[in-house]
């Protein structure tokens, strides 16, 4: 064999090799464009530790629903008790910072936080510990690396509850005990509820009172009583305890709770309550951590994904309520229509969403919704 032949062969081989690597390279490039890879390695099930910082305890409505969600995740994925760490009753100050660091120290791979005011603390701690995932409920920030947020389209459930209230009211006046003014989550809830009311009872009005607290049993009850004295005969709420429902029952009137089925607290008054199924999002995120597929994307799940729903209709609902609700549910599930589809007018009578247009998510979790109250809603 001559030298030159050998040379040609080597060159051929080289070219072939180069072509091969090139095509392989482009193949992997194409794959990564479709399926972005996670920056976090998979975690063995027995090494996994999940932390959560909660604003309340397992006994209150909002934090209790999160607790149940995480416990549901634990059962579904087969984690042991000591693999899920909770910090209860954490205020929105340096104690949040300390609680987060404590959970990092305990070896958690992912840490959840369930209150709006935790957002900035989580963002800063996330920057310090890039190897740990921080997932925040109800805010809007995302650092694109290890800090995302999750929430649910609870407004869809509120709309359904609004139908039950609109069908029930005889006076055409519905009271709403709300937590904070100028808050997108709270106002979004009020507006969706009022749209639900108006979808079956166009002339009904919703009277709102803000109490500047998420949790204040005494004030919640007093506020409900005040609304009842304004001739309201259905009391809805965006606060944590069942006291507004108890007040409605004591007055012989009706109400829609929140967070959990409040029928046991007010069996003769409660109609239905918008509720959360947090376990769906917790299971999804933790599964991704185990598989090494977690990505810094935001989760905003709704009725369709089973994240939100209403509690079973009680014996107190008006006749025909179930049918109306199922109709609306089917429209939402179809994906062709959502609650904030125009035309929508604010309570000064100006059109804010045009006919046929739907509000963007950014204007539901913040933006426009922060200050919007729709036609038929009055702050008392």
């Amino acid at each position: 064999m001559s030298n030159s032949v050998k040379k040609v062969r080597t060159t051929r081989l080289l070219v072939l090799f180069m072509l091969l690597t090139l095509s392989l390279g482009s193949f992997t490039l194409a794959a990564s464009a479709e399926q972005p890879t996670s920056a976090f390695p998979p975690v063995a099930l027995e090494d996994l530790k999940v932390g959560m910082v909660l604003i309340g305890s397992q006994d209150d409505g909002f934090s209790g629903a999160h607790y149940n969600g995480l416990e549901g995740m634990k059962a579904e994925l087969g984690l042991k008790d000591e693999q899920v760490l909770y910090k209860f009753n954490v205020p929105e100050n340096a104690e949040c910072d300390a609680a987060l660091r404590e959970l990092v120290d305990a070896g958690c791979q992912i840490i959840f936080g369930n209150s709006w005011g935790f957002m900035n603390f989580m963002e800063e701690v996330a920057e310090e510990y890039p190897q740990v995932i921080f997932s925040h409920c109800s805010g809007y920030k995302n650092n694109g690396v290890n800090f995302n947020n999750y929430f649910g389209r609870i407004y869809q459930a509120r709309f359904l509850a609004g139908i039950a209230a609109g069908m029930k009211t005889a006076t055409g006046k519905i009271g709403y005990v709300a937590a904070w003014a100028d808050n997108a989550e709270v106002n979004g809830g009020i507006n969706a509820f009022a749209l639900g009311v108006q979808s079956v009872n166009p002339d009904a009005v919703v009277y709102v009172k803000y109490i500047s607290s998420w949790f204040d049993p005494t004030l919640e009850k007093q506020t409900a009583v005040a609304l009842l004295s304004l001739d309201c005969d259905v009391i809805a709420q965006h606060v944590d305890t069942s006291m507004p429902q108890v007040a409605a029952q004591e007055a012989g009137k009706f109400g829609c709770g929140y967070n959990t089925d409040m029928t046991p607290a007010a069996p003769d008054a409660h109609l239905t309550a918008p509720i959360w199924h947090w376990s769906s999002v917790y299971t999804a995120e933790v599964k991704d951590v185990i598989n090494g597929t977690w990505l810094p994307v935001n989760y905003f799940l709704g009725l369709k994904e089973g994240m939100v729903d209403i509690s079973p209709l009680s014996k107190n609902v008006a006749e025909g309520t179930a049918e109306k609700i199922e109709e609306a549910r089917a429209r939402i599930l179809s994906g062709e229509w959502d609650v904030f589809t125009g035309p929508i007018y604010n309570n000064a009578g100006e059109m804010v969403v045009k006919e046929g247009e739907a509000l963007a998510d950014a204007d539901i979790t913040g933006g426009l919704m922060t200050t919007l109250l729709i036609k038929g809603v009055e702050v008392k």
Partner: protein
Amino acid sequence: MPKRPPLSFHLVQRGEIPRLYAWGYRLLAVLFALMTGGVFLAALGYSPLNIYGTMLKGALGSPGMQRETIKLTIPLALTSLGVLLAFRMRFWNIGAEGQIAAGAIAASYFAYFQAHLPTAVLLPLMALAGILAGGLWGLIPAWFKTRFGTNETLFTLMLNYIVMNLITFLREGPWRDPAGGFAATPRFPKGARLPELPLPFVGNVHIGWIVTLAMVLLLFLYMRYTKQGYEIAVVGENERTARYAGMPVRKIVLRTMFLSAGICGLAGMLQVAGPDRQLTDAVAGGRGFAAVSVVWLARLSPFGSLAVAFLFSVMQKGCSMMQTEYRIPASMSDILQGIILFCVLGAEFFLQYRISRRKEALA
């Protein structure tokens, strides 16, 4: 027939007690408290030894935990020093909560609106503002006391609520973070945050730890070796004696109260610029009241206050760990802390007094 005397009890002041005996007594009180708490825990189905072990581990088990415990100690120790100064004069300042908040508000003003200044200027300015605001807030009840003889306990207590509501007003109104959909103050800019320095064995903690240690020493020297310190002691012992000796009692009360409240204001500044990094209504977080127990247990000693404040923080941090690990509700750890405090404060009481039957007392 002779009448039987009614069964009644009487408190009798004890004489001097040997130091060693007193310390043994206190140790017993702590052990008794732990045992009582243990019975309580056992009744709820937990193993007391495991829980106490977890508490210790949670407070001191790793450098990370130690740092958090130190961060709790700093504001509590500093507030205790402030309270202590007024207590030495028998001026019952229980308004530290409000004085901390006043200091925090003033410091926050510079953090939010003067952040263009270089850090080396901004931070001292914030500290100065904190001291002045806290001090002036404390001067109000002192002035009323010296002028009209008002009750300082009630006065200082009620002033707390005014500042707390001022923070709520600022948070929901003029200082609200425009970026959020929810009423909260913005985070401090980077230049308005306290730098961190390594504390031996523990690692980086904000420089409040140096300020606190320096303040302990300063206060010790001030009270022991200066004329002003002596004046405070005399006024505390007996105001008439002080007057008779020609001391300007009014001036002494005002000056001391300004210093007392100023130190509390500084604690507020360190808290907002250190761990909090934003003005919240929990900036004082009950420390103003906890400090009263601290200085009482420390028998008004600066070094003692530092030690007791540290132990308090160990307990607080340990209880937080206990909640996480055993999912014990927060109220449970409040009860445990309450039992320990009750026993230890009770021991102090019985070190000074004993209960005797009326008959014996009369004899």
